[in-house]
């Protein structure tokens, strides 16, 4: 083995080399998400800031789209990372995979440039095909939608063909089935109708069934692999829990779609379905937290990769608080009538996306970097460990500040604008100019600065972790041989 701590691209397999490219773009887009989020936040405090140049709508679109795409790039990279290791054979169609990476990245760049420079078009079909579809989270124009489907199909081919050629582990099986669902569901968002109720009905299929079902399971697969790698948890246990998670997540999540169907024109029976499954949805999250703690206790927190383990634990808790607690607080229709479409939603969205997804991708980045540095030591008393520790602290402190600030603003908004004012124009601005709201937006921005500092530190740490380390990675005693 060559010297520890230096980049070892040559020693990695093809999928892992490709994964590093995906990870690089993912981090760049994470930075873009933070940047445009900060700009949009500043516009709440000073509406004239960049008015007419980069309006709130542009910044906000880039903020949420960068998030979706960086997480997707992170997921795809992570899957390519574990693919050869899981299947036990070299990737099938690696050339295609590399080509697709460049196509995908180029498409993202073009879409971003069009968002920035063209921004809006005339009210014709050509605009939604070429510029912007104008539908939250999936604003990407239709040509890019088709491109995304093609890229995901190629990705699916790589994954499925590799597992079929090698061995189909349980993680592999779940992953392949999940990718079928992921790609299939995206098609639901790719059509035009003048009927806004119908539009939003199918739009939620994409948003909810991605975020609260298929993404959760995808992250479950990454988590399963991560636990085997960092803590040496027995594969059989991890895979049984993966199936438990799939059963509970899909069992509560698929019909949990109902809690988005309260107010968009859909029938009243969704109140009961949405209410029932909303009460069920916290159970898998609690189960994951308990099992994580059980597992960690079992292994006495000994790991080969402390930063990754810290982010994995952050994921279990972040998912629990963001999706579980913050979700349940305003999901029953009796209260959702007043919180729907306020800063409440923003508060919940920030904590849930960060807690459930950003954390897992970051954990995986550390797993990958350990190997990239030649299986470098990443356990206790790592040289320069203050960086990852401060990054995790600042990112969480910033996020919690933002989320609490938006919670207070949303609480005020649900009362002044929604309940008292009846959500008309005057009521909206009465709510927006209330002291509580303004102070909430101010503190949200403070939280944003702290988060930004955390991001910068994280990026720096990812580039340098293990660089000055000469010790090889600790080995954990695996409970038993991998299946």
């Amino acid at each position, binding site marked *: 083995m060559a010297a520890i701590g230096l980049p070892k691209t040559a020693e990695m397999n093809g999928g892992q080399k490709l994964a590093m490219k995906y990870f690089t773009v993912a981090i760049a887009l994470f930075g873009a998400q933070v940047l445009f989020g900060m700009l949009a936040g500043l516009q709440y405090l000073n509406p004239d800031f960049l008015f007419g140049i980069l309006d709130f709508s542009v910044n906000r679109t880039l903020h949420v789209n960068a998030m979706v795409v960086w997480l997707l790039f992170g997921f795809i990279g992570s899957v390519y990372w574990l693919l050869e290791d899981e299947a036990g054979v070299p990737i099938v169609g690696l050339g295609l995979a590399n080509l697709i990476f460049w196509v995908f990245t180029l498409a993202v760049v073009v879409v971003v440039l069009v968002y920035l420079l063209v921004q809006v078009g005339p009210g014709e079909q050509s605009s939604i095909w070429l510029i912007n579809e104008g539908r939250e989270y999936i604003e990407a124009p239709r040509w890019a939608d088709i491109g995304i489907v093609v890229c995901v199909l190629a990705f699916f081919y790589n994954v499925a063909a590799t597992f079929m050629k090698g061995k189909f582990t349980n993680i592999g099986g779940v992953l392949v089935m999940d990718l079928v669902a992921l790609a299939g569901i995206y098609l639901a968002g790719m059509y*035009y109708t*003048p009927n*806004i109720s119908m539009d939003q009905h199918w739009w939620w299929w994409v948003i909810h069934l991605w975020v609260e079902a298929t993404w959760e399971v995808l992250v479950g697969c990454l988590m399963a692999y991560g636990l085997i790698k960092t803590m040496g948890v027995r594969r059989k246990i991890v895979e049984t829990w993966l199936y438990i998670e799939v059963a509970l997540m899909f069992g509560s999540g698929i019909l949990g779609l109902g809690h988005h169907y309260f107010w968009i024109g859909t029938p009243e029976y969704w109140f009961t379905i949405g209410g029932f499954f909303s009460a069920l949805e916290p159970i898998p999250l609690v189960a994951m937290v308990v099992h994580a703690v059980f597992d960690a206790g079992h292994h006495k927190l000994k790991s080969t990769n402390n930063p990754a383990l810290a982010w994995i634990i952050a994921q279990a808790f972040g998912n629990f608080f963001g999706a579980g607690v913050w979700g349940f607080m305003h999901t029953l229709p009796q209260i959702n009538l007043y919180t729907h*479409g306020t800063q409440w939603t923003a508060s919940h969205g920030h904590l849930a996306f960060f807690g459930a997804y950003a954390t897992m991708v970051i954990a995986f980045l550390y797993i990958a970097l350990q190997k990239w540095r030649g299986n470098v030591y990443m356990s206790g008393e790592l040289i320069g460990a203050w960086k990852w520790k401060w990054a995790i602290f600042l990112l969480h402190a910033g996020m919690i500040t933002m989320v609490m600030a938006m919670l207070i603003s949303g609480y005020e908004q649900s009362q002044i604008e929604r309940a*008292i*004012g009846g*959500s*008309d124009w005057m009521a909206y*601005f009465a709510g927006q100019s209330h002291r509580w709201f303004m102070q909430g937006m101010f503190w949200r921005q403070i939280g944003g600065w702290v988060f930004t500092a955390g991001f910068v530190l994280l990026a720096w740490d990812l580039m340098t972790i293990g660089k000055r380390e000469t010790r090889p990675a600790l080995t954990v005693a695996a409970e038993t041989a991998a299946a």
Partner: protein
Amino acid sequence: MSETHTQALWWASESFWRKMAIWVTAGSFVVLIFLTFDTVKQITAGTKRVPAYANALNHRIDYVFDEQRNFQVPVIGVEEPLFGKILTEEEAEALVSHGKLTTQAKNCMACHTLLGNGSYYAPDLTKSWLDQTWGSSAAREQAMVDFLMHPELAAHNSLGRRMPNLGITEDEARATVAFLKWMSSIDTNGFPANFKPIDQTDAAPVAAPAAVPAPAVEPASAQP
């Protein structure tokens, strides 16, 4: 799988949970498909919950409290054609569609919410057709068109938040107003609650647009 030993506890075994995962997922999905067929039927334009385009555009839309359902519901009232012109269903659908395309091409949802979904930088548009901000119901149509074409000129609020000029043409503005009028007729199970619609009772039978567009109203309760 290479692991062949059997687990003592069947309910904690991998194979049991694999089967559970498959059956639960498939079962939930089948139920969802079944419900989707019914929901799609109920939200197709031209039904009780989502009125036909012409029906909405040619008539007055109101938002009144329904004792039995315990929330406000849209009510289609007397004939009151948009821009004074009775439209056929085809014409109305084309107009609403042009308006919907405009809201997408201008990315309205990146600031506003529609049916409560979108962004939170600007007011919800679900019932914007019925908003008291437009002054009188007689002046409303032209006020909305003028506003959409030059939103940057209107003083919206004490915060200094403005809508940028998005290059909306007069045709697009009129189509957008049609889309908003139609959207206000959708039965949204009482969302938004406690909304106080514009007074439409003594509305003139339309035709001639008001000469002076109503200025946008300052919120009275804004705090410094």
